[in-house]
């Protein structure tokens, strides 16, 4: 299935993307390696989720190309794009579970859609996937009965149901209590390792992300401003990276949103 072992799984070249008049990406180049956890970091609103949607073919770039396993995603016909998506899994920030069916059926959903497995085989597979995320006992619960962390783990079981080559995690740590956060921090690299998959992790939770990532890209103002291993980023001399990694309130990203002088606003001209 792999094109060859050393080529990047996702190759992004000269990516440009705008939403209305707001420029989200202005010439992004990125190589996402195979079988590694790659993190894409940046402050809120820099287009990290948009990047995942572009990789998943849910959005089209204005310019540039994105290749997945050697295939140009946006040159594919709809039918081929859907076929390609069977090799990707995505964990949405909200979990995106179907609310009218229970946990078991949510995980079984992609298997029922894309395979002709017998009921007993399907049940065994679903239970194994749920076991991997520690929620085999929650199979009969409805999504509304799950906590945020549990919903994300069910969504993760669903994302790995078809044994994809790659999983994209959209802000997996946001809004999680410390225990759920710890579970996810442990689950993501172990799944990556056990199933030989590649992971793209989009997050602004610096500590957790740097703990599990093999490679990190930092984006800001539509461009990749820094990249490297977590150690390289810790030692980076770039002011922007320092501010982001250390969580400094002021720096290249100013504390104040652009505004006229305070005196001017308070006293009038």
């Amino acid at each position, binding site marked *: 299935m792999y094109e060859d072992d050393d080529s990047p799984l996702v190759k992004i070249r000269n990516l440009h993307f705008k939403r209305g008049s707001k420029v989200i990406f202005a010439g992004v180049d990125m190589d996402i390696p195979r079988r590694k956890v790659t993190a894409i970091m940046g402050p809120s609103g820099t287009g990290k989720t948009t990047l995942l*949607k572009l990789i998943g073919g849910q959005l089209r770039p204005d310019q540039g190309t994105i290749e997945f396993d050697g295939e140009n995603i946006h040159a594919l016909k709809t039918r081929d794009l859907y076929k390609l998506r069977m090799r990707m899994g995505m964990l*949405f920030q909200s979990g*995106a579970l*179907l609310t009218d069916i229970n946990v078991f059926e949510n995980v079984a959903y*992609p298997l029922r859609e894309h395979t002709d497995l017998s009921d007993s085989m399907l049940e065994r597979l679903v239970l194994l996937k749920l076991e991997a995320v520690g929620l085999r006992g929650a199979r009969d619960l409805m999504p509304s009965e799950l906590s945020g962390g549990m919903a994300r783990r069910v969504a993760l079981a669903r994302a790995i149901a078809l044994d994809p080559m790659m999983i994209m995690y959209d802000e997996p740590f946001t809004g999680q209590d410390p225990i759920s956060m710890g579970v996810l921090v442990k689950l993501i690299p172990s799944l990556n390792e056990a199933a030989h998959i590649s992971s793209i992790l989009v997050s602004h939770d610096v500590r957790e992300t740097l703990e599990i990532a093999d490679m990190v890209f930092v984006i800001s103002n539509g461009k990749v401003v820094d990249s490297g291993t977590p150690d390289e980023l810790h030692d980076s001399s770039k002011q922007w990276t320092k501010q982001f990694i250390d969580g400094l309130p002021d720096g290249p990203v100013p504390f104040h949103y652009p505004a006229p002088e305070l005196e001017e606003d308070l006293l009038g001209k």
Partner: protein
Amino acid sequence: MKSITNFFASLGSNVMSAVQKLGRAHMLFFQMVMGMDEILRRPSLLIKQLYYVGVLSVILISLSGFFVGMVLGLQGYYTLSQFGAEATLGVMVAASLVRELGPVVTALLFAGRAGSALTAEVGLMKATEQLSGLEMMAVNPVRRVLTPRLFGGIFSMPLLAAMFSMFGVLGGWFVGVGLLGVDDGTYWSQMQTKIDLHEDIYNGVIKSIVFGVVCTWIALFEGYDSTPTSEGLSRATTRTVVHSAFAILGLDFILTAIMFGE
């Protein structure tokens, strides 16, 4: 001068966004119809929607039909009795119902009950990323979610309109025959003689099918195209009811002119 320029700029931008929206709505309709094989492959999807869209509207439609029929019976009796023509009450009630009130009032009630529910459901699925989730599971959400709902609406509407008319005729009978003393046999026999299968009933059915297509299409498009926020969803639900009402009344005039015009 600047305000005139601004006026034309905003007019142009509004017209452009309206045309773009119309284009998106037609594209979506085309995609939903092209996904028809999905409901042939999985009839259970359609059956589920027939239940949610159709069966759950039955009580509302039946009761409304009965009350409208009662009012028709009452008003019709007072007017017709002035000319000594109360024997034709059955024809008047039935013709009003199967030609006009059945399809139109059913469609208006459908837009308010099932249409707004469809918009809210699809809009919420969008806001909670369920539609994106389906896409990323390599499942086309238009074919899987929208197409069964569209055909559920199209098949339900004529059946609901028929029920509305049936209960309306019974309501008219209850008031006319039961309370006001019109002859029972005359009520039914006049109706049987004068109501024409092609002219009255078929035309009413065609109207309700057209209303079914338009109402469900508007509801699904508004949900699918909504801004995924609470305000966006609330506006989309309102637009569904308002646009459906306008579309039903406007199309009713056009269809009536085509069907019954000289």
